């Protein structure tokens, strides 16, 4: 049972004990032994998933979408789509072929070559990060809600860089104190130097996209190098129900032509801009994503493509899109299973809340949705750190969710069963009424078997009292401030710094005209 290799007995004894033969080792091997790693979550059956796929294909073939982009419609038509005015319908073979072309597994690379910051997209891997474009931000010093400004971007990026369970970066806000068309570019320019975790970039239009791309390509070492090791993902958002807007398609075309991994993610609201039923919103939203998929694969076969979204209910009394509703997690779980069934990675949603403040509601809603996202294996789970139904970004919610995600990841990592972990030898050594603290087995495993909280407090009352009787919120605030004071993201290349300055000044010139 010991992991140590058995030493062969060799002796000059003329009457030796028989040596253990190789056959014995073979006999102890397992046959047809199935292992499950991690907690498995499964909601819909294969039959149900096939029915959903058929529904999406039917919708795309018989109803279609309005595509507000001349060139986009041309490309789709050339690929085999049926175009009638704005309306584009997709024969199901074309969609199936596009699904085949898009990869299920690929890597988004850290800009600085740090392998711990690479994101490997593939089955059984969930990743987390903030979301974009909240108008407001919780000020790190005053803890008050106020408009999001340019100076907040590095704050968010540095916090992301320092939180172990946050894997990619978005800004948690729309920059309010620059020209209203340049917010996205300033955001990217502020995030890129302040974290080497991959960035998911949105933009207003293709000019923004071009500026962003120039910065990323400079750091990668040219377009060719970028294509081999893409260091950011481009985010586009079509409109529900069933509209591919000009901007969404224009940016998609830019990203596809430059081989930037792409997220095409609608934000349908059940009962408002989508059917009230979970299956209905999934069908419609998937159709909206797959129109983008088909166009992207027609331009750039094999382009990494995330279908997505934020799928939730319209609260029928407040009329908001609920970011803390159980239906969000439920719909996202169904959508994740559909995406994986169809062979695509998913842009998931979790760690967000409708609460206006850092309170119990924020933690319940955020933690439960983050846990569900982890269970479903949502490939990139965004909106971690959203509060007030996406109206206010909070690095404190983000840091609290880092704890919840770590907690969730320990659960999804599951139980390892083998001769060593069964610990029969250790149990024998310790015997009745002994203890395991001195066992080599304990020393070997305790760091990896147990999860160590960063914010949850397990001290006894006296120590907790001695440490100032802090609340979870106080510890979260302290951790964020500590990260901001100490985190040193790896620097970008000096030439990229110059490219950023050039991109910003060119953009300022452009909006002057």
């Amino acid at each position: 049972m010991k992991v140590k290799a058995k030493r062969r007995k060799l002796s000059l004894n003329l009457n030796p004990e028989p040596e253990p033969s190789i056959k014995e080792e073979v006999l102890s091997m397992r046959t047809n032994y199935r292992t499950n790693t991690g907690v498995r979550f499964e909601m819909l059956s294969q039959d149900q998933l096939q029915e959903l796929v058929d529904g999406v294909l039917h919708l795309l073939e018989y109803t279609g979408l309005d595509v507000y982009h001349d060139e986009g419609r041309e490309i789709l038509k050339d690929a085999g789509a049926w175009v009638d005015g704005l309306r584009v319908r997709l024969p199901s073979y074309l969609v199936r072929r596009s699904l085949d072309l898009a990869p299920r597994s690929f890597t988004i690379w850290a800009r600085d070559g740090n392998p711990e910051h690479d994101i490997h997209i593939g089955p059984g891997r969930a990743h987390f990060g903030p979301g974009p474009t909240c108008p407001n931000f919780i000020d790190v010093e005053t803890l008050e809600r106020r408009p999001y400004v340019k100076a907040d971007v590095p704050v968010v990026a540095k916090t992301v860089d320092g939180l172990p369970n946050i894997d990619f970066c978005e800004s948690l806000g729309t920059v309010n104190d620059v020209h209203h068309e340049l917010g996205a570019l300033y955001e990217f320019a502020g995030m890129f130097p302040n974290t080497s975790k991959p960035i998911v970039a949105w933009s207003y239009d293709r000019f923004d996209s071009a500026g962003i791309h120039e910065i990323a390509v400079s750091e990668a070492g040219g377009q060719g190098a970028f294509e081999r090791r893409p260091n950011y993902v481009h985010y586009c958002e079509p409109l529900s129900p069933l509209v591919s807007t000009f901007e969404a398609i224009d940016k998609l075309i830019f990203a596809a032509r430059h081989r930037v991994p792409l997220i095409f993610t609608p934000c349908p609201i059940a009962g408002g801009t989508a059917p009230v039923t979970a299956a209905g919103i999934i069908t419609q939203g998937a159709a909206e994503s797959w129109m983008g998929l088909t166009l992207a694969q027609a331009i750039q076969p094999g382009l990494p493509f995330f279908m997505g979204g934020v799928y939730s209910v319209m609260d029928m009394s407040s009329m908001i899109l609920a970011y803390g509703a159980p239906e969000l997690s439920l719909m996202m779980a169904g959508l994740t299973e559909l995406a994986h069934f169809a062979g695509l990675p998913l842009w998931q949603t979790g760690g967000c809340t409708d609460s206006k403040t850092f309170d119990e509601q924020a933690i319940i809603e955020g933690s439960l949705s983050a846990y569900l996202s982890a269970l479903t294996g949502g490939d990139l789970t965004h909106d971690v750190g959203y509060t007030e139904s996406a109206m206010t970004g909070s690095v404190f919610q983000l840091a609290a969710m880092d704890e919840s995600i770590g907690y969730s990841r320990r659960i999804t990592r599951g139980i390892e069963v083998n001769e060593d972990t069964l610990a029969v030898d250790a149990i024998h050594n310790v015997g009745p009424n002994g203890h395991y603290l001195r066992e080599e087995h304990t020393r070997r495993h305790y760091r990896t078997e147990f999860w160590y909280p960063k914010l949850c407090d397990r001290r006894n009352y006296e120590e907790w009292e001695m440490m100032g009787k802090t609340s979870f919120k106080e510890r979260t605030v302290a951790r964020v401030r500590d990260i901001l004071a100490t985190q040193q993201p790896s620097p970008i290349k000096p030439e990229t710094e110059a490219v950023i300055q050039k991109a910003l000044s060119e953009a300022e010139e452009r909006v002057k005209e």
Partner: protein
Amino acid sequence: MSRVYERIGTAIMEGDPEKTAKLAERGLKQGLSAKDILDNGMVVGMGEVGVRFKAGDMFVPEVLMSADAMQAGLGVLRPELLASGVQLIGKVLMGTVKGDLHDIGKNLVNMMCEGAGFDIVDIGFNADPEKFVEAIKEHQPDVVGMSAMLTTTMRAMAYTIKAIEEAGLRDRVKIMVGGAPVDAAFAERIGADGYGSNATAGVDLAQEFVSAA
């Protein structure tokens, strides 16, 4: 010279008994006094272990490894320490009180106290008040520690303290209590000198007692 102290301290922090013993031997060979090796090397290393443990940078299994290393080093130094009349920092007598078969809490305190340089006399579990009294007479400890895991057995702590009083030994020892159902208020009520909420708090208490004496 201080390089040796630093290396011994590091070996303690790394929880490496062989290395600690070897370095202690080397220190003695180089003409350093056992007391200096203890105070400037081992105790400094163990102190750092305590600091890191409290900060959440080290964990119980590692602290125990460091305690093991401390023991190994003390094993090398002990003959000379005794020869030169140097006292270890103090003697702690530990037991789980009558009716209670739980051992691990007490053992943890023992190990950590040993690591801090105390001499430990362990009278085991299910120890009745008379056993405590006899052991105090025999071993002359500075500190008596009592442990209970059960609400039903914690009362035995009060009886034990009473027995120590009746034997006329109460003012010769400091008494500390601990264990899952015990708290500071209970400790005060039964006339103990202190309460430790966990193993390291127990060590801190013992250190407080002997330095105040």
